[in-house]
């Protein structure tokens, strides 16, 4: 009898499929370099920190990556993810988060998503690292290198960026803000013209109404024509004509996502983990443009 019982147990084990210790599927929105850098940081930190404990500790932890291409659809991606039966999903970018919206039984950590709320809505299995740092951090950094810049011009769509602008102002009350609300991109150029001779710096917020390919040129033209530095929220605008730009610390953000993943692996529920923000920012400057605008490196340094 005992023999038959033991044999049955072995037979059951023999039918078990190959399984990793803790399986993570990382979904990247594209092959863009920021996603890859953030993923590398996440992977490195998570792999080094995950303890090999418990029943699955004898097997290796696995991180599988999926990059969405143009032919992919959300359903196909979800089917592929289901086959992997992961313990955790990491979504790099808005598209990755949007494609995995139908998955509600696997915890999801998002990363590099500008407006995650619009995609998450009421889902409880999602948490992540917010893209925007704490509002106004960039101005703190800016004041350290250019304390003379006091008057800040802001063109924004209140419907999209009202909270961001308000928080920024509240965190930097010693600066004087010239606010120019717009409803349509066509208004941006005109509103910018009203800021001529009124401001020391123009802030280009992450507002999709204000920032379109047409209006983007208006910001650069305004900056050059009025010799006013332009502060952008992403490094990508530096080479196009911005004077200063917030440099996202992708490595740090990857590490933060790894920390969240460890919490979830250790049994925490995603719904109980609030999204976290980068706590510090770095500023980069385009020296060529600053020179042309009359801001020399030494002066910036002061």
């Amino acid at each position, binding site marked *: 009898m005992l023999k038959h019982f033991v044999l049955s147990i072995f037979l059951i084990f023999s039918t078990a499929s190959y399984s990793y210790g803790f399986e993570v599927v990382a979904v990247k*929105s*594209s*092959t*863009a*370099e*920021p*996603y890859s850098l953030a993923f590398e940081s996440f992977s490195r930190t998570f792999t080094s920190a995950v303890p090999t404990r418990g029943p699955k500790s004898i097997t290796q932890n696995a991180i599988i990556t999926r990059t969405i291409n*143009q032919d992919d659809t959300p359903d196909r991606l979800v089917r592929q993810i289901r086959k992997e039966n992961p313990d955790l999903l990491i979504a790099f*970018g*808005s*598209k990755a988060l949007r494609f995995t919206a139908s998955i509600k039984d696997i915890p999801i950590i998002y990363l*590099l*998503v*500008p*407006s995650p709320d619009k995609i998450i809505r009421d889902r409880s299995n999602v948490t992540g690292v917010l*893209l925007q740092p704490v509002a106004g951090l960039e101005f703190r950094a800016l004041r350290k290198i250019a304390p003379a810049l006091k008057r800040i011009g802001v063109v924004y769509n209140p419907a999209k960026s009202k909270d961001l602008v308000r928080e920024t102002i509240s965190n930097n009350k010693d600066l004087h803000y010239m606010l120019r609300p717009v409803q349509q*991109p*066509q208004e941006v*150029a*005109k509103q910018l013209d009203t800021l001529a001779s009124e401001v020391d710096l123009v802030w280009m917020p*992450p507002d*999709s109404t204000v*920032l*379109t*390919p*047409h209006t983007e*040129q*208006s910001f650069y*033209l305004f900056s050059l024509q009025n010799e006013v530095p332009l502060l952008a*929220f*992403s490094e*990508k605008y530096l080479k196009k004509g911005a004077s200063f730009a917030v440099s*996202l610390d992708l490595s740090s953000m990857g590490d933060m996502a790894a920390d969240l993943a460890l919490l979830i692996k250790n049994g925490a529920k995603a719904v109980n983990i609030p999204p976290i923000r980068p706590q510090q920012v770095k500023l980069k400057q385009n020296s060529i443009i600053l020179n042309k605008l009359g801001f020399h490196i030494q002066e910036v340094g002061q």
Partner: protein
Amino acid sequence: MIFAKFIKQVQASYSAKLILIFIASICLMGTILNFTFIRMQQDSYATYTRNSGLSMSRLLAKSVQIDVFTENKEQLAIPMDALLSQENILKVEIFTDKGELLVSRASSESCEIPDLKKTLGDLPQSKSSFNEWPNCFSFIWPVLTLPQYKSEDSLYFDEASELTPVDNHPLGYVSIIMSKRQYQQDIQQIFLKTGLTILFILVLLVTGILLLFRKMTLPLKNLIGKIQRERNIGEVHDDIGLLDTTVTSLVDELDRSFQTINDLTTGLEDKVTERTKQLAMANTELTNRQEYLEESNLKLEKAMKELKETEGQLIQSEKMAALGQVVAGVAHEINNNINFISGALPSLTRALSDIQKLTKKFDEAFVQASGDDAEKKQQEAIALKKELEEDNLFNSLDQLMANIREGVNRTTSIVSELRTFSRSDEQGFKKVDLHDSINSTITFLNKKYLTDVDIHKDYGTIPPVSCRPGRINQVFLNIMNNAIQAMGKKGGILTISTFLNGDDVHIRFTDTGAGINQDTLPKIFDPFFTNKDTGEGSGIGLAVSYKIIQEHQGRIDVQSKEDKGSTFEIVLPMEHVDETISESKNS
């Protein structure tokens, strides 16, 4: 009239026709090429103008994108005014996407064109337009919306395809009206330049062709000229016709020649066979003749050998004759000299007898006798001696001894002359004083003819001559014997003169004898020719002399007048050159 003459000349000359056709073709091609080039350049320039205008409108559309988007008329006016500053731009207009005029800038010059709004209405979306009007071109280019950011992420990152193309609905349109004046001026310039260039090339080509044809057709012209001259043709109306006629006749002649050659060829084999037979016969005959000639040659050689032997014998006999003469002379001289001795001998014998007798008397008187007898005998001996002295015994004895000495001396002299005369030639050429030779030879002249002949010697100063003395003496003997024979019993004078002329020694023998007939003169050196009586001469003396002088590289000149005498002049070189050595050196 001139044109008719030109036409006539062209009709007559094939090369002129060819040149005319070629030039006409070149001109036609040049004209076609000219128009083709002009058309191509016109098309190219039109394309360039169109592309240029469209590029201008595209650049304007691109530069006013934001201002059209924001409908900022002040900003829009700036690039439009900049464009209007160009001379050929008449008007610049910018329309909204609905075709409503947003901004318009125009120059003072105008151009009548249809309503652009209607054109815009007909224009497919996002398409450019080019139209050509009587006085201007119009270019329309849509002001397109810029592509939008694909997602909110694109605000932060440079994604691979971050820009999403938007629909083709344009923001508006730009329109540029360009004057055609410059274009038309440029086209006229193209027409003019191309035309002039082609004309210049045509002139060069025609000139070159004329020169080339002239050079190329020169042989043809020369050929026709040659035909004209050879056939005595005056003016040629059709040079090719003349050539054709000439060639046809030449071909006919050639055919005939070939026919003749064929005919000849047919009979040639027979002739060759016949000629071969004749040649074989001639060859056989030639062989026979050759054999005959060889045989004759052998005979001739034999005859020559015999002749040489005969000649040798004759020379020998002549030599022997000369020797005989010499021996006779010598015998005569020796005989004369011996007469001195033999004449003295009886007297000498008597004198010796008297002397013996006297000697005996003195021996008996002064040696054997004694006493009175001795005295008697001494007196007798002294008396005998007186008697003998009275008979001039001793004087006659001296005279006899003198006669004997004279005879001996003369004989010695004769022998000496004989030795001089008969010097051996075995040692070849040697330096000889010819005067000695002549003198010794004179000694042995034929005394028979010498009785009434005086010999005058007129010797000059001559050096010793290289010769064979025996042979030369023989020549002198022959010539002098002939001379004294010619003078005969009448007698005369034989003058022997010698002198030096350059490198030659001349020995001249002049006699005052009968002389030689002018008819006979050329034959005197022929062997066996003689005018002497039978038994007087062999006829080979002068022939042998001639041969001897030839051996000495000299010559004998003869001058003679009948009844006046003859002169034989022997000319000998001072130095004899050995011809065998000289020839071997030359070779």
